[in-house]
């Protein structure tokens, strides 16, 4: 298994390189460095200040290979950029000049405070609802639940947020409609509503998936044997089926875990939560490519981590993989 993991890790390296190349090329196609400079320096900038801006950031160097006479061949934008990322030197934001490591460190906590409870809460809710459906399977409530789950999936995320903000926060005054403050326990009041909304957004799909998994499990032979032995329906479901279903479930969802750090674009923006999702949207709108670049890189690493975690889970569950 150890060898297997090493192989997976090595496999991640070329993928990361590919990600960097794609994002680098895209960033130039999307917006030339000149327009980025203009955007940052504002409406009343002069050509001189634009040139100075470019020079400061090394953006007046060649893109891929430096063919100038006395310059080293690899002293180009791409390779300089690559070198920095490999050593985890994320650099500073194009706009505010802040250290990106610090930006990400600061943003990760608020993001996690939203996504982690939403993920866990949503999971718990989805599992209970799926179990409930399986518990009352083939009843009217079961079919209604299935249709409701599909209905929940069919509502755009923005509609949930607009509804939550306008009705729950404003009409009922239960939660702040906006804002965030890291201040111990009272932070809870800021995260409850966004967490609840995020959990509901993913609920439909999850319930459907989990219901299918549990139903598959309940059709297994051991369940029938236990039933014959006189184990009660409830005990059967909540102990045996849940336990075995969870194994299948965990391998499915563990890939999402690392990406939780990246936060949620929509929710963070609507609720003004200073997480990484918010940072990213701001960076896109301001043309802050250093930040966008670093986010893509970070996202790719987290995604690959998720894949490897899934592999580990599979290996733990399925002994055959350990041998290969």
């Amino acid at each position: 298994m150890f060898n297997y993991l090493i192989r997976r890790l090595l496999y991640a390296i070329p993928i990361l390189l590919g990600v960097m190349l794609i994002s680098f090329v895209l960033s130039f196609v999307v917006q030339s460095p000149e327009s980025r400079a203009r955007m940052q320096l504002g409406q009343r900038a002069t050509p001189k200040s634009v040139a100075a801006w470019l020079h400061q950031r090394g953006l007046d160097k060649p893109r891929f290979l430096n063919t100038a006479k006395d310059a080293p061949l690899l002293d180009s934008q791409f390779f300089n950029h690559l070198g920095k990322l490999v050593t985890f030197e994320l650099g500073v934001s194009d706009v505010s000049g802040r250290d990106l490591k610090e930006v990400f460190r600061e943003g990760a906590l608020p993001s996690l405070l939203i996504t982690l409870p939403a993920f866990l809460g949503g999971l718990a809710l989805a599992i209970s609802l799926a179990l409930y459906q399986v518990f009352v399977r083939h009843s009217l409530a079961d079919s209604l639940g299935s249709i409701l789950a599909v209905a929940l999936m069919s509502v755009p995320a923005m509609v949930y947020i607009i509804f939550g903000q306008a009705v729950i926060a404003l009409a009922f005054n239960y939660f702040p409609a906006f804002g965030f403050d890291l201040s111990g326990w009272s932070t809870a009041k800021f995260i409850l509503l966004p967490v609840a909304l995020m959990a509901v957004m993913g609920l439909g799909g999850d319930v459907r998936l989990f219901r299918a998994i549990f139903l598959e499990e309940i059709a297994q032979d051991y369940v029938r044997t236990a039933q014959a032995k006189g184990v009660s329906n409830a005990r059967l479901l909540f102990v045996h089926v849940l336990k075995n279903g969870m194994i299948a479930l965990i391998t499915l969802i563990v890939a999402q875990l690392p990406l939780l750090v990246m936060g949620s674009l929509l929710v963070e923006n609507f609720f003004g939560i200073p997480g990484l999702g918010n940072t990213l949207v701001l960076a896109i709108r301001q043309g802050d490519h250093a930040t966008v670049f670093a986010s893509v890189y970070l996202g790719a690493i987290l995604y690959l981590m998720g894949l490897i975690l899934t592999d580990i889970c599979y290996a733990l569950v399925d002994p055959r993989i350990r041998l290969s």
Partner: protein
Amino acid sequence: MIPVDVTAAFQRGLGMVLGLVLIAGCGNDPNPRPLRKTRPDGSPWLVMYSGMPEEPRSLDPQVAYDQMSRRILEPVVETLLEYHPFKTAPYEVVPALLSEIPRRELQADGSVTYLCKLKPGISYVDDPCFPGGKGRELVAADVHYAFQRICDPKVGCPVFGNLAEYIRGMSQLYERAKKNGDQLDYSEKLSGLEVIDSHTFKLHLLKPYPQIIYWLALHFTAPVAREAVEYYDGKPHTDGPGGRERIRPKFAWHPVGTGPFVLHEYRPGHLIRLARNERYQTTVFPEEGWAPEKESLLRPFAGRNLPLVDEVLFTMFREELPVVLLSRQGYLDEMRVGKDAFNSFVTPSLKLDQKYASRGMSLEKNVELSTFYMSLDMQDPVLGPNLKLRQALSCAHDTQAGIDIFRNGVPPVAQQLIAPGIFGFQPGFRNPYGFNLEKARQLMVEAGYPGGRDPKTGRPLELTMDVNATGAQERQVAEFNQRQFQQLGIQVKIVENTFARMLEKEDQGNFQIASGTGWGADYPDPENFFFLFYGKNFPPEGKNISRYRNPEFDRLFEQMATMENSPERLEIVQKMNAILVEDCPVILEMNKAFYVVVQPFSPRVQNNTLLEGGLKYAWIDHPLREQKRREWNPVPLWPLGVGVALMMGAVFYSVRWNRRLDV
């Protein structure tokens, strides 16, 4: 079978859910906790809660040139002169860092000199960039340093060109730095700013320029401590906590000034927090000049030390919905009424809705010193030579209808380039090429396109309109404008651009019609509007986006720029206005205006549009705010009850169904 104690269980459940919400929630106040609860003397610490729609671009006083940056810079970095907060007709400049308004002395060779004296005993805020962390006294050398920075190509001051034309030695200093690889030698003195002693300096102008007084009230000329610029270099230093390496912020994000507030915290995309500068004593609350109806409110403040509040908190709002929500709940102290919130606050007769009026809120209208227009490219082969076509386009645009739809009819239609309140504005003047569809169609015939068609090809004339469309509203505006011109039978194609791409196109003259262009006044003088059409002011150096050139207009501009306000100047200004309106290089739209909803606990102390907030005069009635917030945020319990009931119903259902399954 239903348990007997169902109601008891129900109540217990409801109580638990509610308890959880209350423990975790502690109410719905969205604002972060203030820095302190009370002042040292025990009175409540006053916090003002405000919002910002976008990020500031730079907080370097010599660079910042956008509204959001100015909103932060104004309370943090003080200027040499400032606008009187209450006197707006006409606007009046009063001393801030200077002890009096400098007087001009005409020299024999036609040049002009201003003698300026700084107030003694003003010191910078405490900051690690100063030795021992203690702010030092402000001296005349700081002003000299600021003027050197204006000439520094690396700093990139956007108004260098405007000032260099009038202040002696600036162009030379800039040119020498350019030759030296953009390195400005700061040991070299600027001849236009002569330091006499620690608190006195003389400003030497090449020719008369009365508007220089206004420039001294802009933060471009605000003194800067050299220590701060050198300390905050954006590079890593090993002086972090515990000797660790830390990247210091750049000076552009860490202003160090002498102002009434200190920039305490800046979290991009989230919040900006200003805190009182305990050592501030440059200015006090004015003792006169307010409108009579504000007498009872403002009299008690006269002569008081500034600022009146201890902390200002700006939250970044990228959506409009939360702004409205928080204002209704009393958690925002000032709110600009946006287009969509308008109908909820303002009745058709332009009064505040009774619902809010009864809460003690009130409504105030603000007209900015700005004019917005659509630019037509004068070098375009179709539009440039065809005066009648431009006039027809101008006549076809129903500006009032657009204002009604998108801005609730609040801003006035601009009839002339100069905004109201500025010398030379003619109140009764009507734009002869304002909306008139009949006239527009007639002009199209004269332009050679009867019915919007080119008689040679028989096809409709095609024009493109460049817009900066990012939001839903801008897209709707673009569609509206398109429809205006298509009434003439021509085809208008919309090209959507990003902000940067739009600026690029304006600079290159790579457009036919550019919508959303305009100008907000730097200072209240017609010269600050007419230079937009001065023939030597082409982009990218200048802002003559239409690339308009008219020798007569240019001659009058040069003459008017150096004059003091007088009947002769007024005559020239009116003549220039007439030329511009007749030539239609732009389609005039409006002077930006908006309503502000004023909370009962946060009265509007001043509404001078040349101040960007005037935060040092702002005041909050703390006890009233606490009381109103409690009144405005009742918590209903029935939805919780419904939720709990639904859950219990589901449980009962499942139990009964499952019992049937077992059987």
